[in-house]
């Protein structure tokens, strides 16, 4: 196979990319169904897998704005944190209901994203990224200085007892399934095509009648609603929220790395990436208890070098290792 035909194969994948590779999508669906069994089959790993589900949802939230629309946000943890605080504040006022938590978080975060998006979604590229980072840092500090939010001392939430604790797991599963479903539907709809059109060429899209700011705000609001819902189900299970937990660096960075590992701007990518990265992180922590973060860093570097377009791209490649090497060379050329 020549380099030319390898890059032709890649083009084919990238056109199919809006849906993601079909095999990868099926793998994600089957894994997702298997994850339903965790509370029964592996009770001691419930919190671990609930955390993985949380990252999957966050990765889907990020993929909507960063993958489909191409606006790379470094501030999606803002919505995760505000979602967590929605639950904490409801609990502080005597409301302990997961549906209420998620509903409030979705509404608050979509509205907040739209409001903040109006000015900052007019920025492009690096400027947008830096502005989102600024929003995240500012909100962390504001929340830490508001007494109603418990300041830096945080807020405790009422949690259910051990016998009923798996409801938090199923709630996280539902939020994640919802995020995957929403991405699937959006990717097939006119909305999804508009997002991709904006990513590929904003001016051309505007000429075709796609109002850039309006669509970008919709994309960011969907992204925020998903992240907020993930935060809303995380907080009651954790039982305690303070700014360092709600606006944790991990919740900001991991979803981005996971999406890139799985395949940016695809339906199955974030799921595959989140599962594999969480799994690798977990195993390294177990095998190399004192230096695992070093190995984890090496894994991330290796991913960027060897799988620049993510695992979904690898699944989609027909042929063997030589095709992969050639495609890699073509991608870097």
């Amino acid at each position, binding site marked *: 196979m020549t380099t030319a035909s390898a890059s032709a194969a890649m083009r084919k994948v990238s056109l199919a990319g809006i849906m993601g590779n079909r095999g990868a999508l099926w793998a994600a669906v089957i894994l997702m169904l298997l994850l339903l069994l965790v509370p029964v089959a592996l009770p001691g790993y419930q919190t671990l897998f609930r955390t993985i589900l949380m990252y999957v949802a966050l990765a889907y939230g990020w993929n909507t704005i960063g993958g489909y629309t191409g606006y790379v946000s470094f501030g999606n943890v803002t919505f995760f944190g505000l979602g967590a605080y929605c639950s904490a504040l409801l609990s502080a006022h005597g409301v302990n209901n997961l549906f209420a938590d998620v509903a409030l978080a979705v509404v608050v975060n979509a509205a907040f994203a739209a409001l903040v998006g109006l000015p900052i979604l007019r920025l492009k590229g690096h400027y947008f990224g830096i502005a989102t980072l600024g929003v995240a840092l500012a909100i962390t500090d504001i929340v830490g200085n508001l007494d109603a939010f418990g300041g830096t001392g945080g807020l405790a939430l009422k949690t259910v007892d051990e016998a009923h604790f798996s409801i938090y797991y199923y709630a996280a599963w539902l939020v994640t399934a919802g995020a995957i479903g929403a991405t699937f539907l959006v990717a097939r709809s006119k909305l999804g095509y508009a997002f991709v059109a904006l990513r590929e060429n904003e001016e051309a899209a505007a000429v075709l009648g796609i109002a850039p700011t309006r669509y970008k705000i919709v994309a960011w609001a969907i992204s925020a609603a998903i992240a907020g819902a993930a935060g809303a189900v995380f907080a009651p299970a954790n039982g305690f929220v303070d700014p360092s*937990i709600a606006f*944790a660096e991990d919740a900001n960075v991991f979803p981005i790395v996971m999406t890139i590992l799985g395949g940016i701007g695809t339906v199955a990518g974030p799921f595959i990436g989140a599962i594999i990265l969480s*799994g690798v992180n977990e195993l390294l922590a177990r095998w190399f208890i004192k230096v695992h973060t070093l190995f984890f860093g090496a894994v991330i570097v290796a991913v960027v070098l060897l799988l620049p377009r993510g695992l979904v791209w690898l699944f989609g490649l027909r042929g063997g290792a030589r095709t992969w090497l050639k495609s890699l060379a073509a991608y870097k050329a």
Partner: protein
Amino acid sequence: MKLRPMAALGLVALCAALTAPSVPVAAAGDTIVFGSAVSLTGSLTKEGHLTQEGYDFWKSYVNAHGGLKVGGKSYKVDIKYYDDESKAATAASLAERLIDQDHVNFILGPYGSGTAFTVAQMVERKKIPMVEGNGAAEKIFSQGFKYTFAVLSPAPRYLEGILDVAHSQKPAAQSVAITAASDPFSQEVAAGAAAWATAHGMKVVYNNKYPENATDVSSIVSAVKAANPDVILNAGHLQDALLVHKGLKEQNVQARAYGYSVGPDTPDFTGSLGKDANFVFGGAQWSDAVKYRADRPGFYATAKEYAKAFDAVYHHRPDYHDAESTATCLAFQYALQDAGSLDPDKVRDALAKLDVTTFYGILKFDSRGMNVYKPMVTNQIQNGKLVTVWPRGLAEAKVEYPTPPWGQR
């Protein structure tokens, strides 16, 4: 070589490895297994390592002396560790695994109040007792938890001794500036110090917080300089203490006394600051100058004996993190003997009733699970050496006060 089957195979292998039982531990049989998620990486790494030293030192002692006798049977002890990366959410997930997957008998606490809080919630649900020696925030103990006990004095006490020292010297310190990291522990420490100062007629001329894990505190230091206090206090952890003290030197901020909640006690403080560390005060849960004598056999009876044996193993003087971690294990040791059983609920009840004096001081818990019966000590670094200067009955040396200008220390 086809890529797709390989990738699929890899995915299956990963899932299998993930859910395979980790290193098997013998929870049953002749070993009592404790589990602990401590900070071996992240911002609290140094403190996490000291915690682990304190636990391991106790384990070696017990196993070398025929194990623990519980209900007429001798048990070896073992400790299963995980790394919580200095993150609260990770600590909770690890505690769950220790209890449900590794089937440990009991939990030894993590380092830090935030992590201790989330682990406390986990053990409460699982009804497995935890004793901890490194999470002093009172917030943990106002939730009505029944399975969490702390051997250390509450956070608001940390800096009181330093204020008492400076206030009773000549010329007496009249004003204080307090800087604090934003984590719950440091906030409680700062609030406690401010309350003490106000109650004793001292003026709090500056009291502000900065984000935890901050890497630059120069604006805070400038504000402290402008307030011109007699005493400068910082509520934080080792990294904060180093950062603030270096900043104070850089901007040449002169005060009569400098005090830190965590830092001066750890071996790294003097190592990193050299002569600038001299004259600095540190609040401490324990020092090897305390004069308690154990009223029950089974471990070193005095602080001096403990310190000597500890130094022989780890080649440094035990700091209070080491001692409070060892004391955490001692609480279990005596409660297990009292309970005469490994049953979690019986051990919990024995812990609630525990009243024993050890090399570390009194181990006794109030209805919330806090040890309010043990006083704190205040140390000062004099000529590169850490000595205890307060309370007076335990003083090893005279307080050096006021602090001379930077460059002459």
